[in-house]
């Protein structure tokens, strides 16, 4: 870990120097994953314990499972979008395919069918979507799928070159006959002829030669496309394209529409209005239809549900760690992929830093591993705070047994790990039910998203939170149809969760539902005090609370409740009981440390690196990274043995916007010579002075390289500071 921190420090420096942080950030993440998945890294730990290999394998297996789950989810979500896109493609160029001579078609201007995919600002996630999209189109619609990025297309020439080579490349891919391949290679060598005219001739030749037989055997659906498969051009990041390039390209393409069935797919990160802004003259050549992908927040919610709110995977995050990941998502990047990467880092950190994470696997495996635990490992179990708490509650004999008898300990642990598993099963069911109840309340007192509720429950007893009681009060005012909808959701939660937990609760829920149903049928007339139930205004909290008070009064004065109200209270009491019984936070559980990752700080340090701060720390307090005792200084003074750049840096902090280089140099010399304690009058002093001067110049140019100062013409013998304050 030490090593990694140092590397990070170094990279941060790099970050500041060039402001191309994004690029470096990727590099840096790449580095992390490189470090992460070399098993050596694991062995490098404090003690070369015998289980490090096993731990590493467990870690990898777990990660693979979670990763494929996440990928499956992504595919499932994409499918929706892709289906809509396919539908759009089926509609487009209908007349082209039919070679229509219809009047309407003749007279109308030819427009390029354009699908505008609004994908959201989380640009890092788009790549996966486009990858899936390309594969899907190639499999089902057309071999001619081209994806272009703005940075590859600085002008029309490059754009067409890329386009043509990709379209014809697709052709090579699917052909196996060698002579034709050669032909294509020859073509691609004549780079200069990549004009649209050339492409159109090529397309005619290819589709005619194939005649009625299908161009690609793989492609199954939509037989109408077989004769003339469309050319789908995906422009991944429309915002970054220059107006001129795009506009010219669209004008050119629109002139070939009667020969080439071109379809555009525009990847939009912001809003579709950008099309109008970018293409004021060319929109009239487009027939635009909007397709929207799932919002990234919903995607995250689904991901959490699949990966964390489940007992499928033993690994869990504690409240702080989860919060760090969620905050990066909400505050910084909206990127689900980055969230997954963060989770990956958490898993790795957990398995690396927690030796007992060896028990973080599925239940049958845990049992086996418990039995093969070594003496040392048993000892570290005994030292787990959660285990110690557990032991303290035992009778004295049992206490002694758990601390001395290995077999007894293992038996206990087996039971405890089972109960931890059951705890989680119950926890998630109750959590989801509670969320079903509270997420329909006005103003969402316990959070709108389940992740908010989950974090709250991880942190402390939710029923002791301020918002809990008022939320229950509100629940006691729900109208019947709302309540029934919620109950249906809860039944669904029970149905979809594995195992038969929580005794008869599922049955009870169904009973309630049946009763409400019968109430509905029997008494339409009995709506004495039922009038105010209906008027539950969702938006206005103030009115709600007022009517709540009124209700209370009403209830105390007039004890007579309707049947429905009695039942409703029972339902709310039931959920309240469930919450109090099952929703206590996990750190109360024995063996909590084994499956919960608690290193929020590490996550923050690595995922939300602060390059400026790291750089400042390195220069201002070199001891922090170098760990050289000589550099340790109590007060804020500069140790004169510090690296030259640190001394120069420290001195420059005291200056204002403009720095007098002469003064700076003198101060530098003073500090440095104080260390060497040379006699100023000695003969060698001249030479030493020159050396010091050279050192100063080097330090200053290093600072310039790091972006702290730059030369200025405002004043002679001065340089300008580029930073302000302490960092």
């Amino acid at each position, binding site marked *: 870990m030490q090593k990694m921190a140092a590397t990070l420090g170094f990279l941060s420096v790099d970050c500041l120097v060039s402001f*191309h942080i994004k690029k470096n950030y990727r590099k840096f993440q790449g580095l992390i994953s490189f470090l992460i998945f070399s098993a050596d890294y694991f062995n490098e730990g404090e003690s070369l314990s015998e289980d490090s290999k096993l731990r590493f394998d467990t870690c990898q297996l777990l990660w693979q499972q979670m990763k494929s789950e996440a990928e499956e989810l992504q595919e499932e979500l994409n499918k929706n979008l892709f289906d809509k896109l396919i539908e759009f493609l089926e509609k487009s160029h209908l007349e082209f395919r039919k070679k229509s001579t219809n009047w*309407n078609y003749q007279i109308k201007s030819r427009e390029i069918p354009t699908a505008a995919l609004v994908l959201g600002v989380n640009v890092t996630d788009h790549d996966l979507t486009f990858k899936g999209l390309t594969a899907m189109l190639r499999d089902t619609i057309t071999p001619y799928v081209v994806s272009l990025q703005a940075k590859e297309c600085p002008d029309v020439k490059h754009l067409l070159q890329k386009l043509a080579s990709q379209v014809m490349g697709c052709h090579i891919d699917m052909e196996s006959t060698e002579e034709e391949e050669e032909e294509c290679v020859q073509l691609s060598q004549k780079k200069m002829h990549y004009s649209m005219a050339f492409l159109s001739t090529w397309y005619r030749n290819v589709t005619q030669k194939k005649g009625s037989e299908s161009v690609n055997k793989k492609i199954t659906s939509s037989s109408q496309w077989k004769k003339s498969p469309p050319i789908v051009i995906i422009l991944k990041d429309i915002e970054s394209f220059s107006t001129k390039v795009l506009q010219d390209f669209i004008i050119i393409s629109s002139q070939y529409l009667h020969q080439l069935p071109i379809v555009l797919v525009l990847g939009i990160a*912001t809003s579709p209005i950008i099309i109008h802004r970018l293409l004021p003259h060319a929109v*009239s050549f487009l027939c*635009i239809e909007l397709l929207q992908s799932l*919002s990234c927040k919903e995607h995250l919610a689904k991901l959490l549900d699949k990966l964390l709110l489940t007992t499928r995977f033993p690994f869990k995050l504690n409240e702080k760690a989860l919060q760090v990941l969620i905050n*990066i998502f*909400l505050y*910084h990047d909206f990127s689900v992929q980055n969230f997954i990467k963060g989770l990956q880092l958490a898993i790795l950190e957990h398995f690396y830093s927690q030796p007992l994470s060896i028990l973080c696997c599925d239940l049958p495996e845990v049992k086996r591993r418990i039995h093969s635990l070594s003496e040392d490992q048993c000892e570290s179990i005994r030292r787990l705070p959660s285990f110690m708490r557990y032991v303290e509650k035992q009778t004295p004999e049992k206490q002694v047994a758990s601390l001395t008898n290995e077999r007894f300990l293992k038996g206990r642990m087996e039971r405890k790990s089972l109960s931890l598993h059951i705890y989680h099963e119950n926890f998630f069911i109750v959590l989801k039910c509670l969320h079903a109840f509270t997420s329909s309340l006005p103003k969402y007192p316990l959070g709108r998203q389940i992740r908010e509720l989950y974090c709250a429950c991880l942190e402390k007893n939710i029923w002791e939170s301020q918002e809990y009681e008022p939320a229950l009060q509100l629940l006691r005012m729900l109208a019947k149809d709302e309540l029934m909808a919620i109950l249906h959701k809860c039944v669904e939660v029970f149905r979809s969760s594995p195992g038969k937990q929580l005794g008869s609760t599922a049955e009870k829920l169904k009973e309630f539902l049946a009763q409400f149903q019968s109430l509905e049928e029997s008494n339409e007339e009995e709506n004495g005090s039922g009038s105010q139930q209906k008027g539950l205004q969702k938006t206005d909290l103030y009115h709600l609370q007022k009517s709540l008070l009124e209700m209370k009064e009403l209830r105390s004065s007039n004890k007579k409740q309707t049947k429905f109200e009695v039942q409703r209270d029972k339902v709310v009491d039931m959920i309240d009981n469930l919450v109090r019984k099952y929703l206590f936070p996990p750190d109360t559980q024995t063996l909590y440390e084994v499956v919960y990752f608690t290193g929020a700080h590490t996550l923050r340090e690595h995922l939300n690196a602060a390059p400026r*701060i790291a750089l400042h720390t390195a220069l201002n307090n070199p001891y922090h990274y170098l760990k050289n005792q000589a550099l340790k200084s109590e007060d804020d003074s500069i140790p004169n043995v510090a690296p030259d750049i640190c001394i120069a840096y420290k001195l420059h902090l005291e200056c204002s916007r403009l720095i007098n280089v002469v003064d700076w140099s003198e101060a530098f010399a003073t500090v440095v010579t104080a260390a060497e304690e040379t006699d100023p009058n000695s003969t060698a002093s001249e030479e030493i002075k020159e050396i010091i001067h050279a050192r100063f110049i080097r330090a200053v140019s290093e600072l310039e390289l790091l972006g702290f100062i730059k030369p200025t013409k405002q004043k002679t013998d001065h340089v300008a500071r580029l930073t302000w304050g302490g960092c």
Partner: protein
Amino acid sequence: MLPLENVVLCRESQVSSLMALFGERHHFSFPSIFIYGHKASGKTYVMKTLLKTSELPHVIVNCVECFTSRILLEQILNQLNCLHYSEDEYTSHIACDSFNDFVRLFKKVTQERGVDDQTVYIVLDKAEYLREMEANLLPAFLRLQELTNRNVTVIFLSQIVWEKFRPNTGCFEPFVMYFPDYSIGHLQKILSHDHPPEYSADFYAAYINILLGVFYTVCRDLKELRHLAALNFSKYCEPVVKGEANERDTRKLWRNIEPHLKKAMQTVYLREISSSQWEKLQQDDTEMGQLKGLSAHAHIELPYYSKFILIAAYLASYNPTRTDKRFFLKHHGKIKKTNFMKKHEKTSNHLLGPKPFPLDRLLAILYSIVDSRVAPTSNIFSQITSLVTLQLLTLVGHEDQLDGPKYKCTVSLDFVRAIARTVNFDIIKYLYDFL
């Protein structure tokens, strides 16, 4: 082939002067002709039909497609090389690198094709794009006749006047010709000309009359009008098809179509919804309630800090730097209001547009408007870069400038206000212009 006057309408005078210029087949014609006129004034169409019906040897090249001069020259040569060839005869591709080669090859090809005894016409459509190519190209094309010593005429079609082409070193002057815009009468005549076969010409002409009544004030583009006519014609016919009216019930038909066209003006015409969506709406006869136009999707969801960065950038772009102290320092002491407000600066900032600001100023403002403490993490920097790629901010100056990059905020006040509202930030209070 139909006689020319039956297919080209309302351009009699232009056609006859062109014919006069061209003269007999083997006569030398004017070396270069420059034709200009607005979009859809029929330049391409007239030229194409004219050359085709008179069966003159010609090539037509669209300069948009020719992003290098090489493609342009090769297209001309290869099209020439295909003259009088039947489809399946094989012609090899002619490569041409420079204008020198072009002159040489041009002579060779015209000879081979047997057209060296008559005028060959080279039409350069969208000639505006020539101005972006090598500087020698335009002057050379203007005097191609002289350079090749062949009977050739180059015709330029452009939307821009000749004066904007003329190089300041001077050049051979082409014969300049103007295609004026069509009058409403012309439009009526041309549009009515292509009536669908199922309906009488009069019926369609009446429809065009209504269409022009609605659209003529906003759009005179023949192509666009034709497109709109085709899109809405089925709606016009609806009462007739249903048997509710006959073809001569003009009032009834008008009442049916007029509101429909007005709606079209606000939707399809502006490309708020696409033509296919519009046609589908017509077919299903549904209201466009659930179908929202493009501009209804203006909202952008951004990460929390990105919102604040954008707000900070907006403030930095529209507030004078010296007012930052007043807005963002908790204890700014006594800054006299009269002193602080300078008359000439008042309300002018929004009219002048966004001003560039350095990164540090953006960060300083950001830290003071976000209530929690934000560290200058790499994420914050990458968010700034992301906003640049999303075109919500722009980088001023060089892309690769390392020290002190400067930005501008490009979003509108409405947009930033909508963003600010979602984070409960009253941006108006912080804007100098609205003080």
